[in-house]
């Protein structure tokens, strides 16, 4: 983890719901896709955690949903503005377990960290397949970014207005060696149930600190209570204890 100033070089809407934020700064603390960054926003006491969509040594890209007052303010911040950022937070995805044909399943903004994951899996010679699920056509994001990597994502929409009608599981007949998923918990649970293989799931949580100090985001696992921010946000399928 590193604390540093990052400059906004792009903050543009992708559609009415999601926006892309590109931050220039020292990306060296980021060691794995699926890690997150935590932004200090003017006027708010707590930082806001966001999955890193993709990154290199000089910049990182975040894709965020306008969900509350913090993200509404973030939408309004201009290019050129500097933000105090904690980067390299959380464990990230373990690429060593991917096998040859890993399946990446994202729901909504959960598609974001799968892009950086997909790029790195490709660079390791893997053949990732991607399923992205959204509510409706207007919510669809990042399909062009996956296409630019040479991977054509299968898209599902709940209302059938784009791609396959239904949830991501409707498109899960693809054979795969392992799965990685990020999105709403109900979706990830359905993916984990449907898949016969091992997998990793990336969880969202309301966090206090984002680096393991406050115990604000604890989740029970088969290995006992774990901090989503520090021990996660990525957990192995076998470790998950689902709330019933």
């Amino acid at each position, binding site marked *: *983890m590193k604390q540093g100033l990052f400059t906004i070089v792009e903050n543009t809407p992708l559609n009415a719901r999601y926006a892309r934020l590109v931050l220039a700064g020292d990306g060296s603390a980021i060691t794995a896709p699926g890690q997150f960054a935590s932004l200090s926003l003017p006027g708010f*006491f*707590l930082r806001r955690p966001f999955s890193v969509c993709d990154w290199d040594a000089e910049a990182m890209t975040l894709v965020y949903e306008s969900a509350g007052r913090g993200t509404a303010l973030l939408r309004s911040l201009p290019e050129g503005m500097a933000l105090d950022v904690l980067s390299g937070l959380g464990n990230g995805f373990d690429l060593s377990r991917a096998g040859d044909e890993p399946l990446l399943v994202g729901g909504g903004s959960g598609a974001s960290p799968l892009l950086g994951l997909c790029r790195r899996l490709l660079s390791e010679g893997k053949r990732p397949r991607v399923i992205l699920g959204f509510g409706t056509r207007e919510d669809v994001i990042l399909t062009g970014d996956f296409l630019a990597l040479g991977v054509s994502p299968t898209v599902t929409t709940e209302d059938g207005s784009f791609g396959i009608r239904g949830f991501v599981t409707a498109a899960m007949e693809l054979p795969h060696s392992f799965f990685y998923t990020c999105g709403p918990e109900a979706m990830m649970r359905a993916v984990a149930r449907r898949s016969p293989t091992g997998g990793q799931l990336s969880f969202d*949580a*309301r966090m*206090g600190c984002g*680096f393991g100090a406050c115990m*604000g985001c*604890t989740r029970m696992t088969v290995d006992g209570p774990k901090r989503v921010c520090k021990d996660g946000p990525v957990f192995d399928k076998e470790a998950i204890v689902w709330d019933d």
Partner: protein
Amino acid sequence: MGRLSVSLCGIELDNPVIPASGTFGYGHEFAALYDINCLGSFSFKGTTLQPRFGNPVPRIAEGNAGMLNAVGLQNPGVDAVISRELPKLREVFHKPVIANVSGFSVDEYAQVCAKLDGEEQVGWLEVNISCPNVHGGGMSFGTDPKSAAEVTRAVRAVAKKPVLVKLSPNVTDIVAIAKACEDAGADGLSLINTVMALRIDLKTRRPVLANVTGGLSGPAVFPLALRMVWQVSQAVKIPVVGLGGVSSAEDVIEMLLAGATAVQVGAVNLKNPFVCKEIIEKLPAVMDRYGIENIQDIIGGAHG
């Protein structure tokens, strides 16, 4: 004695800056970022007799200039703290540490304190009778002078180390509770714990926190904490550790002027993990600016 040093219950601190319990874990997350031996001490995560998962999530909400938490004393239990956490802590922190203790009965407080009292690295026991986020324990002991005194007496009877009693602001008369603890043998007092608070989600029309209420901390509560430190330090002879929203070197000076002997820094650690180190580094320049030679000289200085 350096110009930043203070003495708390007979133990000298290199400086009066102490991360508050619940915002610093057992030190490891911060030791990975900087050498935490620059701290005066730190108060580790509240410890109970049995392991506790704590409250359901969400446990965290936000307020203007502060935050609410309802963690509910998640901890691995005193035996695991002694066997697992303290040996690891010794590797990264080489000064006396404050053992923060909570409980659900007078007997539990005494048992946990007795166990931690025997640990070499424990300098002080900090008895938390003020956690607002657990039911049937915690704050229920700290809102009544009689039960506060009862816990204090029970702990005092089993402990050799100095006992600090951590007080709740969620009372009508904090001075009465403070005096009851002093009379029962407390060696010092820490105040304030968090202020019981609430947020409601406008979309769901339900409380944000699964526990409904949580404890407010952060800069929002600093003036309230300062007022209570002012009142209590005038009413008792034992030292007071001031906490509640302290975020800067200036806040540390202000707390000492109000009567605190040392200061704990809480919520702001969660926003800026380097803040305690930064405060310690800035203190000499801030002292110079206000004509303070030695920081211990200003303790209670605002009382005239």
